[in-house]
């Protein structure tokens, strides 16, 4: 109904403090939302589909007798359920998302539109190759961009995510060693302390032993330490560059030389490629294999934890050892090869996944790359590094940086030395950021730095946005120093949930919904 009295509503003379609980438990736009198992009904469906005409099933004795117990919702109820759930999430589109090592940059919507073209989205991986020449062309063009940007000789497109790419690269190394007859003698992979947890996990998964390399005081890896750790048993080094402390490894060329002299290979974790696209080509530095997180550097959406995509670029030495399937151009036509012997050298190590990789992500990544072009890609990296250094300088006098005033790459690292004795921890500080409308930075990683806070603003932030972020964090640091502990210890106060009890969740895991125990009438009445 219209306000037919035409009177504007005022703010009230003096709004009293009001903290009453609402009947629904909602707080205006912040709503509660039950589980689909609590609101759905088995007989309800949001889809109209007619029963088939009578026919004789061909199921043998295997028709389903077990209950499905799957609730249904009509379409309006479904929309409301998921829209309400979505409103409990933070997102890049809603605010700065400074998760170090995750590269939460803008996800262009053009990419989404193009990935949904029927010619890409509605195409089956096993259609005749004569009917998918455009899809294969896209993969060929994207491969070309990735190789040019990295200096590589080949690229394996099928890995499904960064960690899967690591697996691919390390398998190629294992295959190359086996081809040299050193598969059983070279078992050790060197991994710096500062590495992502996936690196040692990947190496161990396929039977390598992990030998840790300590990081230097300044957060980098010394070529001397690598040389000393090298021996005839060493298969490879897994090094992140730019590294997890946000620094470009200054001795990377010497490290590559050391591992190559010792007969090993150089696997580079490409998680931080966003800092150097168009500035440095990793294979020029001596890298033999590197995965590229298309969902970080090339803007494919993170989607609440995937799907990602992790193509692996390979140096000339490792190029023959890529996994199937292969793409081959025969004149005007492209074809997919799945049999190792068809590739000519017979060195491929096998297959990583059922089909050809994350096509939907390939379309998005190529759309991003073509939009930027060579000039825009370099500019994006420079802006990412610029924003990170601007944050580093903007906070350097009020927080503590483990490696002093040294310039960083695309992420700025702080430690918790400045919090010592204040009663506030890195975790508390991060949770207080939530109340200020920010997603926290990466915390307690890398492990080599006490109470680490790794801030990656990305190139997607305007100067005004980064300025406000810096001012907010400065205000929080002043609050710490004034001893305003309650701002931190109980935070967040304004999020859809207060701090959640993760210990309880792990001790008595509840991993699925189960119907509540029925109330027995007689006892309930007593």
């Amino acid at each position, binding site marked *: 109904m219209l306000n037919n009295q035409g009177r504007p509503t005022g703010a009230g003379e003096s709004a009293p403090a009001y903290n009453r609980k609402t009947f629904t438990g909602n707080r205006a736009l912040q709503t509660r939302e039950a*589980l689909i*198992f609590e609101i759905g*009904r088995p007989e309800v469906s*949001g889809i109209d*589909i007619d029963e*088939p005409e009578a026919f004789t099933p*061909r199921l043998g004795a*295997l028709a389903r*007798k077990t209950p499905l117990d*799957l609730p249904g919702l009509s*379409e309006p109820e*479904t929309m409301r359920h998921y829209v309400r759930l979505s*409103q409990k999430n*933070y997102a*890049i589109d809603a605010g700065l*998302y400074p998760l170090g090592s995750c590269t939460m940059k803008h996800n262009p919507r*053009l990419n989404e539109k*193009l990935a*949904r*073209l029927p010619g890409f989205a509605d195409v089956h*991986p*096993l259609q*005749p190759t004569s*009917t*998918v020449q*455009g899809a294969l062309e896209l993969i060929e063009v994207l491969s070309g961009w990735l190789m*040019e940007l990295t200096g590589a000789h080949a690229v394996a497109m099928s890995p*499904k995510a960064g960690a899967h790419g*690591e697996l691919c690269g390390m398998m190629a190394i294992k295959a190359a060693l086996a081809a040299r007859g050193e598969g059983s003698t070279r078992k050790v992979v060197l991994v710096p302390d500062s590495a992502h947890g996936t690196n040692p*996990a990947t190496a161990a998964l396929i*039977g390598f032993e992990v030998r840790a390399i300590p990081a230097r005081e300044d957060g980098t890896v010394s070529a001397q330490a690598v040389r000393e750790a090298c021996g005839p048993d060493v298969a490879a080094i897994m090094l992140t560059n730019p590294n997890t402390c946000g620094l470009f490894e*200054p001795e990377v060329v010497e490290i590559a030389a050391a591992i190559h002299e010792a007969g090993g290979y150089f696997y580079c974790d490409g998680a931080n490629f966003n800092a150097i696209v*168009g500035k*440095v080509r990793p294979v*020029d530095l001596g890298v033999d294999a590197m995965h590229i997180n298309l969902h970080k550097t090339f803007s494919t*959406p*993170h989607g609440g934890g995937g*799907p990602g995509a992790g193509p692996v670029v390979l140096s000339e030495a490792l190029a023959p050892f890529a996994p*199937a399937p292969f793409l081959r151009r025969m004149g005007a036509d492209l074809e997919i090869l799945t049999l190792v012997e068809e590739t000519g050298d017979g060195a491929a190590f096998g*297959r990583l996944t*059922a089909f050809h990789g994350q*096509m939907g*992500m390939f379309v998005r990544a190529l759309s991003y790359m073509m*939009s*930027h*072009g*060579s*000039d*825009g890609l370099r500019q994006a990296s420079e*802006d990412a590094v610029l924003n990170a250094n*601007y944050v580093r300088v903007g906070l350097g006098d009020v927080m503590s940086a483990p490696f002093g005033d040294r*310039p960083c790459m695309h992420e700025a690292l702080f430690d918790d030395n400045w919090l010592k004795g204040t009663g506030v921890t890195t975790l508390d500080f991060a949770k207080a950021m939530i109340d200020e409308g920010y997603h926290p930075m990466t915390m307690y990683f890398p492990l080599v730095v006490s109470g680490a806070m790794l801030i990656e603003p990305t190139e997607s932030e305007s100067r005004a946005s980064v300025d406000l972020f810096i001012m907010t964090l400065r205000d929080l640091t002043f609050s710490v120093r004034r001893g305003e502990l309650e701002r931190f210890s*109980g935070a967040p106060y304004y999020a*859809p*949930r207060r701090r*959640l*009890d993760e210990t309880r*969740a*792990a001790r008595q895991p509840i*991993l699925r919904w189960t119907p509540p125990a029925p109330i027995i009438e007689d006892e309930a009445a007593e």
Partner: protein
Amino acid sequence: MRYLPLTPEDRTSMLRRIGAPDIDALFADVPADKLLQELPDLPRRKSELEVERTLSRMAARNVAAGSVPFFVGAGAYRHHVPASVDHLIQRSEFLTSYTPYQPEIAQGTLQMLFEFQTQVANLTGMEVANSSMYDGSTGCAEAVLMAHRITRRKKAVLSGGLHPHYAEVVRTLSRMAGDDVMTMAPDVLAGEDMLACIDKTVSCVVVQTPDVFGNLRDLNALAAKCHENGALLIAVFTEAVSLGLIEPPGAMGADIVVGEGQSIGNALNFGGPYVGLFATRQKYVRQMPGRLAGQTLDANFERGFVLTLSTREQHIRREKATSNICTNSGLCALAFSIHMTLLGESGLRTLARVNHANAVKLADMLARVPGVEVLNETFFNEFTIRVKGDAGQLVERLAAQGILAGVPVSRLLPRAGFDDLLLIASTETNTDEDRAALVAALSSQLAH
């Protein structure tokens, strides 16, 4: 550049604030001879219009499944996805959020994953499910590793009905990890004797149902023999819709159930991204790979959800982790979950019956075509036919006529003597006209 908010003036003044003379001063750690002076040898920036034009041209060179009579399956299936699914997964808060490490501001993703886990567990007839894997094939390989951890044995036996690409993924990972794999011969008629292969050295048996040739498998005897010998039964499916109509592996004694979830909520996407479903028994949950959402309480004793049991995972355990995985297939899991919620039990059952009815109708029509033999006794929405001559060439000829007729078995098992076999899938998207077109084209091709 439209995605970059910093202006040239911003850059200059920010460099001044930092105290760097120019941008390359921030790249001082890069060896001078490695810092690129020239731009990469690639095209310059393009407008949205130009990019759209370039990629649309590539897309137009492909034959979209929806534009022709389409019967291709073998691990990926074309189903109708409701418009609301694609709308909801494109909401910024789902699309552009990260793994829910900060649960207070990620309850949307976490509750959705908790619901997804419950749906997958109920669908497969199991007790618990994880929050998804990359796809069915990688989930299958991870299941084998999990079985090895539980049984402390290292030998897997793969059914000859397992999708050949899945088998290859398992063999690749197992070979690299130094584990044994025994693969049964390809088994078109589901006549293999797996019971004879199970002894006390076997860690797990991997069986697909419906198998890659479409046959439904009764797993009860196999499960019993596995358990007698201390081995685990891993059941695989590539068509999730089938579970709306056939007995789930969990009810037949499977210990781990893995499968491809693409066919609910997700497009074909030329092979990815897809979503792996992974379910097991409660007692094995601590050996399960992948992320798990769990229920807990917040400081106000309100129900909430968090990622849990992370002590299994790589970022805590490093080289002792159960797996190296750190992402799942979150957005595809969301699409699966929304579609499943829209379907509900009654919708899923009907959808599955329509699929089966369509496939039965098509199989009966094809059985009457001279030169075609339908090989399956049982199937869900996909079956194998034997044709006169080479099935691969036949499929090419039919494609030239605008019909995508199915997957030649030689595409999955090259040079293995199956050149006359063709897998044909039929879902609710096929019409009577589609079936008539296929039958007519096949009849005329085989009459030559």
